[in-house]
């Protein structure tokens, strides 16, 4: 998250709403470990990354739906381990779990 701090500051002082997605768990093969993070502003600006580029697009969609009030803060899973498997997978075959929340704390 360190690499996000300057942008988070900038958005906060501009009053821009931001969603924060952090990797909290990686199963099997995964490119980035717990703590890898990305942030998405309401305007659709993106900083950081949570995988090797496999799921970032889908995270932006989740982030925007959070900021638009269409979903609550909570977990998002990418991969094929459970029945909740998303359409988007990781090329390396692993599963990553993200926690997504509004950065307003």
């Amino acid at each position, binding site marked *: 998250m360190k690499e996000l701090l300057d942008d988070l500051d900038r958005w906060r002082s501009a009053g821009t709403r931001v969603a924060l997605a952090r990797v909290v768990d990686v199963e099997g093969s995964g490119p980035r470990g717990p703590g890898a993070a990305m942030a998405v502003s309401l305007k659709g600006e993106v900083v950081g990354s949570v995988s090797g580029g496999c799921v970032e697009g889908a995270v932006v969609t989740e982030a925007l739906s959070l900021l638009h009030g269409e979903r609550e*803060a909570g977990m998002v899973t990418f991969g094929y381990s459970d029945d909740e498997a998303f359409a988007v997978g990781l090329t*390396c075959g692993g599963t990553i779990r993200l926690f997504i929340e509004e950065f307003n704390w």
Partner: protein
Amino acid sequence: MTLSNNLAARVRSGDPVALATVIEGEGVGNHLLIIPGADAQGSLGDPDLDRVVHRDGLAELEAGRSGIRTYGPQGQTTPEDLEGTPTVRVFVESWAPPPQMWIFGAVDFTAALARVAKILGYRVLVCDAREIFATGRRFPMADEVRVTWPTPVFDERGETLGPRDAVCILTHDPKFDIPAIAGALATRVGYIGVMGSRTTHERRLERLAEAGIAESQDLDRLMSPIGLDLGARTPEETAISICSEIIANRTGRTASQLRGGSGPIHP
């Protein structure tokens, strides 16, 4: 100061801090900020849960680990206590201070090694007793350059070295190498690499024995000659060889080619 402002200040200054976040169960999105030696900030929603997570978070931070822990609503942790109660899943994210690399010897290889170490996130200390070689101008990428012998540096702060840290001894000079090796062996440092040919290595073992260092558990800790066999020639290639060994040493991997193996790459 908001919780995230406090977090950002600690992360920027490289001071240890952990953030606990409820990710599933009652109170999703609640945060607790954990700072060694200070009161926690925020709450996960229950004072007993806060107390237990604070304790666990400090331990995770000490180990430099991040991960998910499961509790009962009041911080219960034993399986019997958790049976039949709704659980709260908490993600503890640790920001530990950067690992340290101490490089002894201000030689050609030192600048290249310091540069690669910086890319990997190390705080780099360069130490040499020769004033004309150990200068900040020659090693602008180092966080600190010390003109002194190894022993005072180890006496002063050897106890700050831990499993994530590395000591690289590049001097090839016994009167510098031997005290540096002895100093490093007296710490908990995770990696000790010593440069030199195989002949130098053999002679070094004799000198270490004369200095009273001959125990196999000590000598087993020495990566000497330093580095992986990449056929590295230049200082930059040698730096990659050394840093690759440090990574493999930490992860316990064999550093063989991935295409020759099977199973997951990140087990």
